[in-house]
């Protein structure tokens, strides 16, 4: 068991999500930075869909009751294992009784902790990703015990990966969304020309941007939305849906990010800059 002694700001168990239930209104969910989740699983020679711990802003304090191996990736974070500093993108052995102190994020926004064999909380609707009300909790809580299979004698083929540093990127690769053509030419130019700033409202459901486009009166009938869909509210506010975002919506879908760019955006925080770059394909 992995015991949560301090839950941190917002840490949740995530895998690659819960596909197949969107037509019941269940969002895809899963790791916001899927590239980072895949990296820790690759280092630990897990399945790509094994569950990892996603940690935002300020990490938790965890105790391992049996031996295993771990790896960290995604955002930079001050992490100590039994008082020893750990580095991202490397495999570390963890003896039984170890204490992992995950501190503040130093760069980016979400760090990932992978564990050999993955976290084995029960699957609900085919996934271990925490999302209320599909799962009982949205995030881990103090005293919670997260199961994993003990592991000793693992010899990692790759001991270390070079850092990816997604948080340094500002460009979000986007295709015109289904309602893009309804925009005035000036608004279309601004979407692909301007630089935008993350607003205070950003979480696993959606990220809002501070700069607005002109208010509009475009009407549409509710239709599907995806992670990475950029919606334009009547007041001109841009909202980018994230993996826990709603499955349908009534605001014009002006852009659609590619999957990699959702990972880039997931490493942004308040006042970080982004710009949209048109997908060449």
């Amino acid at each position, binding site marked *: 068991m992995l015991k949560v002694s301090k839950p941190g700001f917002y840490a949740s168990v995530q895998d690659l999500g819960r*596909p*197949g*239930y*969107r*037509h*019941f*209104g*269940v969002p895809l969910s899963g790791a916001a930075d899927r590239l980072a989740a895949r990296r820790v699983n690759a280092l630990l020679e897990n399945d790509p869909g094994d569950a990892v711990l996603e940690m935002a802003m300020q990490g938790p304090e965890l105790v391992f009751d049996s031996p295993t191996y771990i790896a960290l990736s995604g955002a930079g974070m001050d992490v100590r294992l039994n008082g020893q500093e750990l580095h991202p993108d490397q495999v570390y052995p963890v003896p039984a009784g170890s204490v992992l102190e995950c501190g503040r994020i130093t760069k980016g926004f979400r760090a990932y902790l992978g564990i050999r064999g993955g976290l084995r909380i029960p699957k*609900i*609707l085919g996934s271990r990703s925490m999302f209320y*009300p*599909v*799962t009982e909790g949205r995030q881990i809580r103090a005293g919670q015990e997260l199961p994993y299979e003990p592991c000793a004698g693992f010899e990692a083929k790759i001991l270390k990966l070079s850092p990816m540093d997604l948080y340094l990127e500002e460009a979000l690769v986007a*295709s015109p*969304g*289904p309602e893009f053509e309804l925009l005035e030419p000036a608004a279309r130019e601004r979407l692909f020309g301007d630089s935008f700033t993350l607003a205070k409202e950003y979480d696993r459901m959606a990220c809002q941007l501070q700069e607005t486009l002109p208010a509009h009166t475009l009407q*549409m*009938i*509710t*239709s*599907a939305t*995806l992670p*990475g*869909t950029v919606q334009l509210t009547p007041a001109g506010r841009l909202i980018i849906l994230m993996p826990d975002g*709603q*499955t*349908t*919506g009534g605001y014009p*879908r002006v852009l*659609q*990010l*590619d*999957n990699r760019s959702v990972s880039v955006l997931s490493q942004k925080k308040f006042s970080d800059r982004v710009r949209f770059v048109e*997908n060449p*394909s």
Partner: protein
Amino acid sequence: MNEISFRIKPFGTRAVLLEWPAEVRTDILEDIVGFVEFLQAGPMPVSQWEFVPVYHSLTLISRSADLDYPTLKEELEQAYSEYPGPIAREQHHWELPVCYDAAFGPDLDTAAAALGMSPEALIEAHTAQPYPVYGIGFLPGFLYLGGIPQAIQVPRREAPRLKVPKGAVGLASRQTGIYPQESPGGWNLIGNCPIPLFDPKREPPCFVSLGDTVRFRSVSRAEYDLHKIEGEVGVYDFKRKYGNAKG
């Protein structure tokens, strides 16, 4: 050949959007329901594709690879030319109990007054017809219902509530529906339905499907309390009827 048709649009690198004429119509709904079944039984199995139909559109999402849009567009046009159109199918008509007591419907009196009718007349009009299910989305188990009579179309509240309780039945312009979980909301609250619409422990987690109909039945507080227990343990009798639907 079908009389109605759709336009195909790319939707990012992993999805494609099919749009029928921008109207809320049961013949379009039936065409979409039938075409989804046709695709799933043939060229686009659910193991590889996710289907999100709602109102006049159908979004197809690839579960794995990026799409080759021009090829996919051609395949969909080909499939639609071979699609015989909606055929008679099993359709569920769900009857859901709603308690319209003041404790559950804080906006019932003001909504009725705005419509120039008594609260009793509003309840009667709200329960008078079945509503087709045009999609499920926004929240897990939230049903998009259509066919709301003009006489009970009332504007949404000016100030949304931060907390609308689970099961609340709302009414706003051309929409009525049940909040499947506690959430913020701006609709006029006129009652509460004790039957849970979403249960992640069941497969499928929502018993209602696209193209079914839902009809509300006014119940007393005592019946509500009984149905709530029945709903929680899963023994509520829906008195559902089966029918045949055809566009």
